[in-house]
């Protein structure tokens, strides 16, 4: 039976054993040493981010390597990168829910948590880039004394709405998925404090069939809007670039190209986290090699879409007959940023072809390496889009090369630390694998026998 093979679960799991196993990770076991190492390092980096931001806000964004002609630089590169990572989290969870892919149960929580913290990091960058983040509300239609409205035709205003919508969506979806699991933790908790803590979070969830019916309906609505949200958010971010007339930005292929790129890097990150977490917490029965195999397949599919987009972008540039567009490409291949372009091609076009082999997809170590190179590749892609397109546009007198400064790197490092820090706290407070989804999956696989 096709469905049977999808469950990828070991056969002797029961409702009780799976509950004990996953909830026990938080409530009965001390954190492993590797968790402490990751926690301490990431907490230090997150603290460093606070200090760095304080310096940046008191001094000004001049500390960054942004100037004319490259006015967007690192913060935008990193926003797009983080948003992309967030997207696969949403998509894995929601689209696999809608299409009833049963292997989803083991990894959806990881994906949702990842999406939540990646979007938090992504949302930080536009605020930092503003330089004066306390004026961010200028983007909202608030009743001001000057009778002004935001400029509704501006992609930056669209961005603000898209990212805020996505942030609210992601946090609601994550909380919704956590709600029944918080009830499980509440019922298992031994300490008075833990009982109160999880009772607050569970809101009095009673596992009633009526609760579940409404819960499933709400989840279906959430899942149904997930795909449009994912497509619209990255699509709108790509419009920041595509709506301008800058050669290298002004491509109609950008929205679908960015969505595919986002999903590619996102699936890579889920694969990365899945490999790390199953090693850290010993979850080899719950997140099996088959799950890694599926993730590897998804990475390959979206990598191929991205590769196709590269080819079409190059084709469009030369088919346009516009010398400015030719120049962008000659410059990408031979100019000051050429190493970035070729490294990107190596990571995203050459290395990912290894995923055709089942042995590679099923090997945790190989998948981990490919997940890292894919994320580097996707980061380089955003870097070359933002930097090479603007550094040499229409007027040679304005050409210049920009490079990130130490402050750029420190902020980037800081958000990486923040992401890991939030994730590490999350896995000690909330179940790493969705317990109620696993119970349903066990019930389903028993019925198929």
């Amino acid at each position, binding site marked *: 039976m096709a469905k049977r093979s999808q469950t990828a679960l070991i056969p002797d799991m029961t409702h009780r054993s799976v509950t004990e196993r996953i909830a026990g990770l938080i409530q009965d076991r001390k954190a492993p040493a590797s968790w402490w190492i990751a926690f301490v390092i990431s907490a230090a980096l997150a603290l460093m981010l606070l200090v760095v931001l304080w310096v940046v806000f008191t001094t000004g964004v001049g500390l960054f390597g942004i100037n004319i002609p490259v006015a967007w630089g690192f913060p935008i590169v990193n926003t797009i990168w983080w948003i992309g990572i967030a997207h696969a989290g949403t998509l894995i969870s929601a689209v696999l829910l809608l299409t009833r892919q049963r292997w989803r149960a083991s990894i959806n929580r990881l994906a949702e948590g990842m999406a939540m913290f990646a979007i938090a990091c992504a949302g930080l960058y536009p605020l930092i880039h503003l330089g004066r983040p306390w004026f961010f509300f200028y983007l909202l239609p608030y009743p001001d004394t000057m009778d002004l*409205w935001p400029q509704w035709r501006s992609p930056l205003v669209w961005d603000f709405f898209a990212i805020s919508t996505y942030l609210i969506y992601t946090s609601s979806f994550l909380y*919704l998925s956590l709600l029944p699991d918080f009830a499980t933790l509440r*019922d298992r908790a031994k300490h008075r404090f833990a009982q109160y803590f999880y009772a607050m979070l569970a809101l009095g969830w009673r596992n009633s069939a*009526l609760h579940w019916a409404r819960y499933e309906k709400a989840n279906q609505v959430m899942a149904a809007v997930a795909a449009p949200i994912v497509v619209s958010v990255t699509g709108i971010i790509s419009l920041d670039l595509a709506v301008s007339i800058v050669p290298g930005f002004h491509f109609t292929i950008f929205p679908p190209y960015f969505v595919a790129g986002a999903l590619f890097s996102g699936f890579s990150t889920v694969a990365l986290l899945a490999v790390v977490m199953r090693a850290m917490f010993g979850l080899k029965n719950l997140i099996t090699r088959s799950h890694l195999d599926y993730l590897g397949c998804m990475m390959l599919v979206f990598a191929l879409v991205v590769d196709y987009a590269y080819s079409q972008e190059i084709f469009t540039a030369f088919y346009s007959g516009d010398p400015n567009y030719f120049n962008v490409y000659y410059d990408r291949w031979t100019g000051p940023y050429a190493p970035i372009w070729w490294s990107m091609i190596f990571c995203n076009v050459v290395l990912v072809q290894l995923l055709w082999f089942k042995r590679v997809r099923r090997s945790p170590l190989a998948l981990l390496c490919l997940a890292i190179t894919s994320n580097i590749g996707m980061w380089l892609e955003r870097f070359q889009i933002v930097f090479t397109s603007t550094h040499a546009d229409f007027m040679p007198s304005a050409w210049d090369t920009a490079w990130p400064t130490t402050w750029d790197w420190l902020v980037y490092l800081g958000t990486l630390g923040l992401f890991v820090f939030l994730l590490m706290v999350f896995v000690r407070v909330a179940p790493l694998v969705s317990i109620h989804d696993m119970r349903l999956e066990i019930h389903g696989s028993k019925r198929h026998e």
Partner: protein
Amino acid sequence: MSESSVFGILVRMPSAEALVEATRAAKRAGFRELDAFAPFPVPGLVEALGYRERMIAPLALVLGLIAAAGAFFMQWYASFDYPYVVGGKPLNSWPAFLPITFEVGVLTSVLTAVFGMLIRNGLPRPYHPVFNDRAFDRASSDGFFLLCPGASLVDVETCLEEHDVREIKELAP
């Protein structure tokens, strides 16, 4: 018996299938305000209770559409309230208004679904009589329970005579 010291009868069943069967039997026997508890959404259980969720999805759609219309109107109104011509484009440049229209509509649907679920479920609700029973903690692990509020122990026992009942007890209010 208005000052009852019993909220209802709580029955524990051995499996999801047995719970669905018992719920059907209790429903047929005419018990009122029945509720069933399981650690995951058991297929067919809520149908056995005679309930179908009809509110959340349509409401999410309707409120989403209203909010989207409102967002479009806001942008349309703003471009005439503060006319600002960019690149010779018309003031009502509606294609540029669509991204925000879409986002606001979708956001409203999402919030409707989440808060609709919470409100229809009566959450947050810190206290409920089922929490009096320590054994009920198993409802979030491997326990399958049927609750008959206001029923008498004897009636429920007679009704579920043929069923594989694991535990049956009175619940304090």
